[in-house]
Structure formats: C-alpha cells, structure tokens
C-alpha cells in the first residue's frame, strides 16, 4: 500500500517539493492537497506582470489541472483546512472532508499584515497576496480613479506600478524616509524614488496613516473615500492597497499543538516537533529565521523531497538572498548585508548623468553586500563573490566596474558568462548554478529555452535571469543555438508542424509514405504521434483526393465510437442542436434493449450516450440508428462535436433570435468536417447565455440587432472565456463567418491544438481580419470549407453498417472450441 501524504496549502514551496519528490520516488505516496485558494499552483511572483497587463493567468500557472491528473494527486481546491488531529493523523477541511495521513506537510504561506487603523475593513481596502487581490485591483482600475498604496517596499511598488499602468492615479505612502529601506541604502532608495515618480506615481515618505475614511451612507454601502495621515492630510482615494509586510500563517499548526515562534519551528530536516509533520515555505521558521523570497523556500522544498524519499542526510541551512524589483524599466539589485559597521569599507560608483549607482560593502577583504541601481548585469557575479566569501584583494582596483574589468580587458556579455565558474548561481529563485545548466544542455541535448526551463527550472520563476540563461545556451551550443528554433513534431523528424504543412503543399506530397520519404523521417513508419497528425494535414490539404489512412487514426476515429476502459465502446448519435423526437427516443430505447447496452447517459453536449456496446455489435447498432434517421455524433472526432443551443425566441420570453434553428443549421452545415482538434459550438438566444456559448471554441450570442460571434473559449483542462470575433446582422453571415473561421483554423492549426491555443499563437487580430473584416478573404475561406465538406459529409456509421472495414469488427479466428475440447 502506498503511504499517504497530505499537504496543506498549494503554493510555490510545496509545489516544488512534490515535483522533486515525484522525480525521486514516483510511486511511493498517495498525495492529497488542500488549498484554500480555489485554484492550481501558480507563480505568485508573477502577479505583478498580471496586474500591469504584461501576462495572463494562464502564463503563470506552474501545474495545470492535467499535472494533478497525471501524477494521481487529489487536489481539493477551495478547501481550507480547519483542523489537524495528530492523534488520529487526520486533517479536516471547512467543507467537512477528512483525510488520513502518514506524513503531513504544512505549507500555509503568509498572511499580509493589515494595519488596524480605523476603516481598515472598508470595501475598497485590499491587500496584495493572491490572484483574487489582483482581480479586485484590475476591476477597481477599470473605472479609473485614485489609488493609495500603503507601503513602499517590493510589493507596494510593484502594485503601484501595475495600477498606474492600468490608468489609475497612484500615490505611495511610505513610513520610512526612503523606499525599500530593507533592501536599499538611502542613496539607491532616493534614485528609485525619482524613477517611480518619473512614471507619474506620487511618493510620500515619512507618511504615517491615521485612518481610512468612508463614503457617506446615502450613496449605497460605505466604502473607502480617502486616506488620512497623522498630519491631517487627506488623500482622496477609491482604492487602498496595504502592502506593509507579511506574517507567517501558522494558526493551524499552533492549534494542533506544534511549536510556533514567529513561524512554525522546524529542524534542519524541515520536521516540526511532530516527526510525521513537516513545514515548508513562508510559514516555516528555520534556524530562527523566516523567509519571504522563493530561493530559500525552494531549498527547503528540496530537503523535504529528499527526506520523504529516505535521504536523511539532506539538511537546510539558510544562505544569503538577492532581491530584484520586477517593474519593467527599473533595474535594481541588492544582496547581502550593506549596513555600515566597524571595519567595513565601501566602494561607491555614481554616474549621475546615466543614473547609475553601485555600492559594494567589504569586510576583511571579502565582499559582504552589494546594492546596484540602473545597471545590474553584474549582479550574479557579485552575488557569487558574496556567497563564496572570495578574497577580493586582487580584484579590488576594478571590482566596482564588474566582471568585465576584473580580468583586465573588457569582455562582451557572452564571454563574461563563459568566464563564470561552474558553481556560479544563475537563477536565484531556483538556486540553479551554471554547471547544472551546462550539463543538462549537453547531456539531455536541450536546444530551446523551454527545454532548459523544464529540465533545470532555471529562468522558470521570475524570469529576470532569462538573458543570462540564453547567453549560456549560446556559449554551450555555439551556432547550434537558435532561439527561434521550432519544436519538432515528434522524435521521428526535426521538422515542426508548420514546416511539415508548408512542405506538404510546396512539394505536393500526397501520402504519408511520401512525406516520410521526402522529409527524411528517421523511423520507418513514424509513430503514434506523427501519423495521426500527417493524416489530418494531408486530408485537410487535399480534400477529395487524399485517401484517409485508417491505420494512422486513433482507435476512436478508426471505428467511429469511443473506446472505454474495458475495451467496449460508447455510441453517441447526433441530436441536431440538442433537439430530439419521440421517434428517436423510442428507437434508442429499443436498441438499448436489443443489444443489452448497460448504460444510457445524457452527455454534457446535449445528447444521449449509450455506453458499453460490444465492438462486434457496433455495425448493427448503427444500422438500427440509421433506420431511425440518426447519424454519427462524432463524439470521438477531432472534428465538429456538438452545437449546443437554448430554446431561444420560439419559446423563451427573453429570446431575441431563433437560436435553436440557427444551432441546427450550423450543425447541419458543419458536421463531418475534420479539424486539428475537436470543435464545440453553442448558440444562445440572448446574453443570459443559457447555452454557455462563451466557453466554446465558437459561440454565438443572439442580440436584438443580430448576432455576436465569439471564439477561442475553453472549459476543459483550461478554462477561458471566449473572445469576441465581431457582430453580424444576418444568420447567413453567421454561417459564412463561422465557416471561414473554422477553415482558417483547419489550415493553420497544429494537430491537437484547440482553437484557443491556435488563436493565442497566431493572434486574434490576424484571425479577425481574415475571417470577418476582409470580405474577400472570408468568402474564399468559406468556399474552401464548402468544397471540403462535399467529401466529408458521409455518415461513417452508414458506410460501416454497409460492410466497410468489416475486418475491424470481427475476430480473425475463434478458437474457443479447441480449448473447450481439451
């Protein structure tokens, strides 16, 4: 039996611990995670780029839903743990789920500190910790207005820059005389203030918040109206963000009787005073310290993974950390200890015209601290000197000018990276040194930045070291490193999907063996990844002439039904637009009885699924469905699946158009088409959107003036609302635009790439132009779609009920009698 591992909290620290644990002991634990936040593990560091609009949530997800499925991890999203019973070894969530553990990891992170001034609990007062905070800020920023950020540290300044970027009028209040005083000396703090102010953000230092003032009761529920300082100044504001610090979140551990000081006290093996319970991340206190940056948390995570896979020698001891500010255009770096003190010397470089400031603090010929503003390229090098306690006597003369001068002649950046020692740290967040990156590149044959990220984690968190990692790839791979290099389709070829598609057309390749021959496939006969892709590309490129290669299709598409885990199949007939009739239902009922079909289910796609049909019965089941007028619903196809509809104008008191009829018309027009991945559509009769059109690949929302066409939604492994393609007036135009859109996708989409991913890759504007605005392009696309439909709209069930591919549905030999005779 597997041991049970339970994790409380799903932040960056435990995420890393589990990743490492699955590498070391893949099958040892059955893992359950409870997370108070209703979502998967994401890169909290990157919330600021979301706030400023440079990234979206999808970009910062660390483990998507698929990861948990693949690793067999049971993730309870939105379940806050309210109790740990150490006697019984169970944890219980607020929704009443209780799970037993053999080992428990507490990773509850930190809570933002809220200064208890009057009005701190008013609507409009936020902290800055998670995605909900960011969404609330973005919402507030939509209506413009004024924001006051309390706290001029790392988080406060990132919040201020983001809100400013979103168009708000922003003031930062800071209690101390200079900004980020914990990481910067006064001189650098001053330069930083200038840079922040140059972006149109007002900064008030030595500002003591006295109260937050509410709006009058008359205009709805009270919310924030202004911030009042001790000196009486009132700053009008619609939004207040408190970013004044964090406190380890140790309540649950304390209640369970574990030793808690500032954080949950752990030993060097990351165990609490209960050996079955570990703590990791910002909630933990190790060697008397608590932490607020990911680099040390990831080191803790490694130690836990080692300990849980029985390496008892792994221990955690804190080391120096470096800080960077992630505000685009402001370069700032600080590391180590830069306070003045006896015996300390310093070297300072100021270049006022270029706004550069550097200060090195030296103690006994060893660099102990560094602060840099404006030019930070040498950060990694200085940090390395600090951590290694290198004797700098020899370098001293030119030390402040950085690594380029250290050896005498100035070096170019690539040479500088080449000169770094193997154990120089490149990625601070993940503690990855140069040697590890170079070894991984060489041993695993990595050629892209994504590969290096996946294998080493370097540059996979805050991303500020991306440039250095790319330099390293250049140094290691030489000319073989091409940042624009494409991902090959699979191990059989070096060509990417787009190249293969282009070459199929350019060289008029018409069969799979042709493609493999001409493009020098390295395997005979390809693999299960490239063959279905090639089959689709050829089918989409040469409609009417290409002969479908059944053996290159996944079983479901080969036999036009969905394989189930016991080897039986499910059968889903079309119900156009979700409509059915008494006759169809009666026929289905009879078929279920006739073939002894164990399960009948209404699907999420507005139709009926018959599950557990024996393979040899399929042709007869289909013949009977055909007799009742039904055809294949293609529930198995990388092709058109369903067009969901709502009742619309015909019945509904809010309906603006006949959404049901439009859905039926779309489905009758589009069925049978093969696409790179499945395509799901829906038509709703009004913006109440009962057909859920705004999470489909293509959706239509009917409005009084016509039809709003949506696309690029998703609601499976990823959830994404649609983008609006545009508005059209008539249902004929709806048909033309949707056909053009789908055809464009058929021509450009990579195999298995859903519409939302394709759209993200090629850009919404280019799609909008070709499928909607440019009427000629749109018509041409639509015509190509109509042409290919001539060969596609043949019911595959009818063909097979008529005898096609009969070998699929019957054994070659039955030897049961021989066995029985024995």
């Amino acid at each position, binding site marked *: 039996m597997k041991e049970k591992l339970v994790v409380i909290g799903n932040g960056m620290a435990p995420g890393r611990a589990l990743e490492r644990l699955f590498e070391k002991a893949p099958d040892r634990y059955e893992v359950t995670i409870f997370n108070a936040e209703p979502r998967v593990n994401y890169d909290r560091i990157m919330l600021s780029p979301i706030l400023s609009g440079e990234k979206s949530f999808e970009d910062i997800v660390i483990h998507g839903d698929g990861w948990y499925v693949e690793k067999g991890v049971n993730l309870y999203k939105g379940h806050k743990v309210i109790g740990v019973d150490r006697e019984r070894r169970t944890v219980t969530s607020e929704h009443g789920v209780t799970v037993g553990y053999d080992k428990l990891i507490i990773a509850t992170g930190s809570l933002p500190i809220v200064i208890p001034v009057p009005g701190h609990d008013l609507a409009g007062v936020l902290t800055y910790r998670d995605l909900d905070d960011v969404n609330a800020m973005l919402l507030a920023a939509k209506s413009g207005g004024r924001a006051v950020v309390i706290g001029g540290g790392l988080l406060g300044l990132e919040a201020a820059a983001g809100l400013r970027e979103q168009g708000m009028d922003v003031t930062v209040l800071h209690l101390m005389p200079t900004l980020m005083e914990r990481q910067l000396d006064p001189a650098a703090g001053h330069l930083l203030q200038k840079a922040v102010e140059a972006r149109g953000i007002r900064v008030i230092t030595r500002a003591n918040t006295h109260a937050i003032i509410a709006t009058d009761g008359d205009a709805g529920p009270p919310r924030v109206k202004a911030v009042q300082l001790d000196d009486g100044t009132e700053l009008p504001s619609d939004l207040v963000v408190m970013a004044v610090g964090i406190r380890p979140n140790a309540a649950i551990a304390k209640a369970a009787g574990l030793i808690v000081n500032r954080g949950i006290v752990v030993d060097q093996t990351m165990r609490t005073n209960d050996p079955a319970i570990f703590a990791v991340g910002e909630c933990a206190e190790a060697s008397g310290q608590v932490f607020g940056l990911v680099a040390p948390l990831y080191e803790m995570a490694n130690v836990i993974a080692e300990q849980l896979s029985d390496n008892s020698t792994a221990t955690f001891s804190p080391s120096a950390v470096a800080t960077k500010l992630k505000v685009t255009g402001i370069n700032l770096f600080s590391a180590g200890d830069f306070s003045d003190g006896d015996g300390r010397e310093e070297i300072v470089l100021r270049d006022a015209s270029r706004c550069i400031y550097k200060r090195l603090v030296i103690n006994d010929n060893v660099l102990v601290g560094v602060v840099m503003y404006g030019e930070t390229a040498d950060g990694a090098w200085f940090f390395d000197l600090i951590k290694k306690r290198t004797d700098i006597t020899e370098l001293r003369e030119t030390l402040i000018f950085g690594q380029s001068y250290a050896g005498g002649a100035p070096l170019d950046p690539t040479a500088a990276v080449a000169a770094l020692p193997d154990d120089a740290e490149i990625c601070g967040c993940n503690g990855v040194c140069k040697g590890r990156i170079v070894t991984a590149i060489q041993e695993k044959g990595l050629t892209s930045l994504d590969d290096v990220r996946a294998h080493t984690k370097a540059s996979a968190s805050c991303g500020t070291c991306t440039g250095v990692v790319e330099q390293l790839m250049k140094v290691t791979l030489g000319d073989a490193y091409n940042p624009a290099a494409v991902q090959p389709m699979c191990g059989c070829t070096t060509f990417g999907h787009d190249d293969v598609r282009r070459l199929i057309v350019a060289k008029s390749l018409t069969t799979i063996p042709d493609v493999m021959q001409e493009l020098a496939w390295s*395997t*005979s*006969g*390809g*693999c*299960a990844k490239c*063959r*279905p892709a090639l089959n689709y590309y050829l089918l989409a490129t040469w409609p009417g002439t290409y002969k479908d290669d*059944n*053996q*290159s*299709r*996944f*079983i*479901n598409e080969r036999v036009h039904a969905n*394989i189930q*885990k016991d*080897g039986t199949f499910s059968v889903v007939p079309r119900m156009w637009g979700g409509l059915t009739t008494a006759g169809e239902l009666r026929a289905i009922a009879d078929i279920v009885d006739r073939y002894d079909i164990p399960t009948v289910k209404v699907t999420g796609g507005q139709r009926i699924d018959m599950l557990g049909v024996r393979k040899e019965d399929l042709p007869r089941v289909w013949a009977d469905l055909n007799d009742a007028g039904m055809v294949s619903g293609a529930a198995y196809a990388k092709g058109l699946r369903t067009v969901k509809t709502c009742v619309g104008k015909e019945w509904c008191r809010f309906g603006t158009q006949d959404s049901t009829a439009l859905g039926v018309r779309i489905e009758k027009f589009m069925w049978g088409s093969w696409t790179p991945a499945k395509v799901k559509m829906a038509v709703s009769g009004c913006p109440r959107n009962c057909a859920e059109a705004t999470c489909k690949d293509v959706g239509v929302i009917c409005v009084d003036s016509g039809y709003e066409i949506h696309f690029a939604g998703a609601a499976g492994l990823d959830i994404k609302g649609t983008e609006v393609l545009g508005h059209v007036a008539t249902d004929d135009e709806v048909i033309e635009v949707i056909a053009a859109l789908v055809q464009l996708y058929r021509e450009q989409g990579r195999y298995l790439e859903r519409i939302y991913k394709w759209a993200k890759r090629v850009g919404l504007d280019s799609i909008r132009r070709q499928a909607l605005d440019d009427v000629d392009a749109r018509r041409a696309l639509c015509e190509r779609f109509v042409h290919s439909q001539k060969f596609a709209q043949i019911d595959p069930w009818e063909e097979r009920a008529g005898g096609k591919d009969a*070998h699929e549905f019957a*054994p*070659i*030999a*039955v*030897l*049961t009698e*021989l*066995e*029985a005779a*024995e």
Partner: protein
Amino acid sequence: MSVMEKAWIDIGAISDIPAQGARLVKTARGCIAVFRTADDTVFALDDRCPHKGGPLSQGIVHGRSVTCPLHNWVISLETGAALGADEGQARTYELRVEGGRILLDGAALENLAPE
C-alpha cells in the same frame, strides 16, 4: 521441463489483417492480438496491455511496436516489453507464416493462465 510439441493452428491469411493493423483471435481464456507490420511481419501478443489491461489490438502500429489506445504505453511487438520509461511485459506467442497463412502455436494456448 518436458519439451512441448508444437501444434500449429491455421488462423487465417496474412492479407486478412490490414498492414499496420491487428486482428483478434478469441480463445476460451482471453484474446490474442495478431499484428501485421508495414513490412508484412506478423506478431502475436496477449490483447492485454501490461499497464491496465488495454486492448493492444486497437492501438496504432508503428515500426515493430504498438501504442496502447488507453494511456499510450508503447509495447514492443517482438518482445512484448513496454518501451521507454514504462515497465511491463505482455505475453508473446510463437507463430509461423507459410504460403501466406498464419499458423499459431496451439500448444502455447493450452498453457494460457485461466482468466
């Protein structure tokens, strides 16, 4: 161990199986998948994936291996072993091809473990 007599049973013609495809032989003790590769070599394996029993006969045949339809393990047709990072073994059966006919060793079938 006694030397087992081989009892060759004619199960059909090679042309009954599509190239890069498979057909089933049903026995009282489960199904055997008979595969034909692109170069017309024929192999016989238990129709049960060593992972979770997926029907290998329904997978995509490529080179001398088949990808299981349920969770994409790749199984060697020659040895029945799971390839790549996965570990597992599907049982293989000896067969001969004579004059386009496929002959399966019936003696081996009798040793099949009961389901």
